[in-house]
């Protein structure tokens, strides 16, 4: 391959340099019907799962067909999206916050051909490229992180468990039978780039073994004071270590019983890796939400302390998620989010109906907030 210059001159990096221009202005990318009616929308309706209509004061309508997608996406697939958008949508398309793709058309007669086109496209091995759904009282796309595909700190994969989970929840992606929307999210470690901590169901990668110490290299690779300061439980202290060859080096020591396995030390110091096949796995958290609707936003709570990483399809994880979803579908009242349902029936009942074991791991013992989660009353259910 011959190098092709963009025009950049490495000897004079500042020559013709353009910086600090920010993103393109959104106005350039609005479809005409959106531009015309911005701020003047009257109401919307979900005509069927994955198909919405928004009606403006002017009487204009915009029909949206929402499809799911792996957020990990090749340029060929994006080019195919462009081809569809050129054919049906005048060359416009958008993504949602939850990695769905939305194709918009300005009249109803354009909806069916668009739907037909989208549904007909499949990968060679058989999965849909553009499944229609993800609206209303159902499951929408999973927001997630990078996992083993690109991240250096994950305790699980992201795209793999997401694919496996969405296969299991697929009917609810294309249906709206649940009491309310069910937001599922995945973060492959506690850093939670995916911010899953307020999701109806959160799949969280977690380590369970303290860091290994690469003494020979630690002082060369890391700022020891930063590694020490990184530990939220003060489990790390500086120390001198004698290597097998008798050489003394500066390093750190870890009080394993204080370790909460957050991996923050590894973020600061690459000589403290903690990933481990048996140690790493998944925590299932439930009942969080970000909406202010009816009840206030709330954090997800730990429902299952640990599940092993069962690549490639994480069967225990997906079956527990399915079980929780079914229990919620059966027990929730209309408009009730999963967390509100669990609080109404009580958490003790939640563990019964979801057939989940309540273990000591699920009682909070992390600092002050823990106390506020213990029961301070005589009100409980048998």
């Amino acid at each position, binding site marked *: *391959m011959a190098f092709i210059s*963009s*025009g*950049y001159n490495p000897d004079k990096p500042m020559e*013709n*340099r*353009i910086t*600090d*221009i920010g*993103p*393109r202005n959104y106005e350039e990318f609005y479809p005409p019907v959106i531009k015309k009616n*911005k*701020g003047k*929308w009257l*109401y*919307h*309706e979900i005509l069927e*799962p994955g198909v*919405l209509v928004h009606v403006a004061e002017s009487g204009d309508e915009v029909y949206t067909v929402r499809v799911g997608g792996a957020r*990990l*996406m*090749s*340029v*060929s697939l*994006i*080019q195919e999206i*462009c081809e569809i958008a050129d054919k049906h949508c005048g*060359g416009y398309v*958008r993504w949602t*916050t939850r990695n769905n793709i939305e194709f918009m058309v300005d009249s109803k007669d354009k909806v069916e051909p668009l739907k037909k086109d989208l549904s007909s496209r499949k*990968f060679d091995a058989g*999965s849909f490229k553009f499944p229609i759904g993800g609206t*209303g*009282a159902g499951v929408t796309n999973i927001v*997630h*992180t990078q996992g083993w595909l*690109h991240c250096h*700190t994950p305790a699980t994969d992201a795209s*793999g468990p997401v*694919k496996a989970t969405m*296969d299991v929840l*697929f009917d609810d992606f294309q249906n709206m*039978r649940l009491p309310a929307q069910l937001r599922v999210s995945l973060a492959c470690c*506690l850093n939670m780039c995916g911010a899953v901590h*307020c999701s109806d169901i959160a799949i969280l990668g977690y380590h369970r073994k303290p860091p290994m110490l690469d003494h020979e290299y630690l002082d060369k690779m890391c700022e020891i004071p930063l590694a020490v*300061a*990184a530990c939220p439980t003060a489990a790390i202290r500086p120390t001198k270590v004698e290597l097998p060859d008798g050489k003394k080096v500066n390093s750190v020591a870890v009080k394993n019983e204080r370790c909460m396995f*957050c991996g923050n030390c590894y973020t600061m110091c690459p000589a403290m890796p903690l990933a481990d*096949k048996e140690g790493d796995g998944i925590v299932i958290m439930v009942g969080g939400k970000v*909406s*202010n*609707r*009816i*009840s206030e*936003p709330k*954090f997800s709570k730990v429902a299952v302390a640990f599940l092993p990483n069962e*690549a*490639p399809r994480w069967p225990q994880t997906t079956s527990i998620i399915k079980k929780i979803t079914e229990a919620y579908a059966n027990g929730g009242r209309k*408009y009730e989010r999963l967390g509100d349902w669990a609080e109404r029936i009580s958490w003790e009942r939640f563990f019964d109906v979801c057939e989940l074991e309540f273990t000591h791991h699920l009682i909070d013992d992390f*600092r002050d907030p823990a106390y506020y989660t213990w029961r301070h009353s005589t009100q409980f259910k048998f």
Partner: protein
Amino acid sequence: MKLKHETPMLDELESGPWPSFVSDIKQEAAKRAKNEKNVEYQIPTDVCDDLLGILELSFKHGRTHWKHGGIVGVFGYGGGVIGRYCDQPQNFPGVAHFHTMRVSQPGGKYYTTDFLKQLCDLWDLRGSGVTNMHGSTGDIILLGTTTRQLEEVFYELTHNMNQDLGGSGSNLRTPADCLGQSRCEYACYDTQHLCYTLTQEYQDELHRPAFPYKFKFKFDGCPNGCVASIARSDMSFIGTWKDDIRIDQEAVQAYIGGEIAPNGGAHAGRDWGPFDIQKEVINLCPTECMWMDGKDLKIDNKECVRCMHCIDAMPRALRIGQDTGLSILVGAKAPILDGAQMGTMLVPFIKAEEPYDEIKEVIESIWDWWMEEGKNRERLGELMKRQGFQRMLEMTNQKPDPRMVKEPRHNPYIFWKEEEVEGGFERDVNEFRKHHQR
């Protein structure tokens, strides 16, 4: 077409209905190998093959094979590029260098296909051809290229596409918004305009890390919170209103009469029985401020907390008020280190009007405080906990307001300041002893 590596575990992720990322990357690998368009690929042609190969190895080992980052970037910026190297470069040379570039996404994530095609061509030529649409913060993520290509990509982005990189590291992260007024009747302010204006205003903070840690802005048009700003942004801007919910009584009757499906038809997948306004709307109102007066729906707006339920449930009958603005909440973050934090109400109501000077004042006073007092890798929420919310009020010149708390404090351990106590703290102990023997 045969791929470079056997991937028996990944192959199992090709079945099932949900779009398979494995199928997609395989397709991309095959396309690059064939190279029908004679692209002069600037990074190894087999990059996608090796990406699948190393991912298969991770599936087998149950551990990642990516090394800790590396300091790479484009000249003059401290963010926007994340260095990445694999730990098995001999076996997977195509992904030996696999750096990420974050490209600042447009507001509302609307695109023209012209823009996307240009971006695809660029990434096909100079990168792996693999992306994330989009990353968790909101950027377009270009996943995997070599160090030499970073400046080339940046040059093409800025010169040919009028497009900049986003944020990473200890800086302002690329702000993100909901689609807002562009296609939503609930939006209380123009999220796109405010997001774009502040993004442009703070380009320096976005590209050149000068903060103690990351800092996120997110813009939600209403309390439904579709971009989850309240859970994951250091400053969360959530639309709200002060006046009355607009009621169309005829439409209320149409909902009661079953002519319009509630909640925009969101519950159509099950027979929940006929719509019951008492049970489904009035009784679920968290402040019990609604009732039927004969055929008219009444709302005591003074008692409304704008939870959105009644509007969500009957969007054709009820609309947000017209005296709109936004609330600013501060300090939300994910769990690392001291546990997750939800946003805390700092400014209950502020108008969202150009040029947004009042909003910028709040932002800049918070940054002044945090940059002065924040420790290395301390998020704003953690500083708030360490120094107290009163300090936040002092630094931002906000008046204490009961709307900022759920309830008053549980203890009387008030840190009285000397100037708040009559006569000050200095006293004469001998004078005291004249009346109180030792």
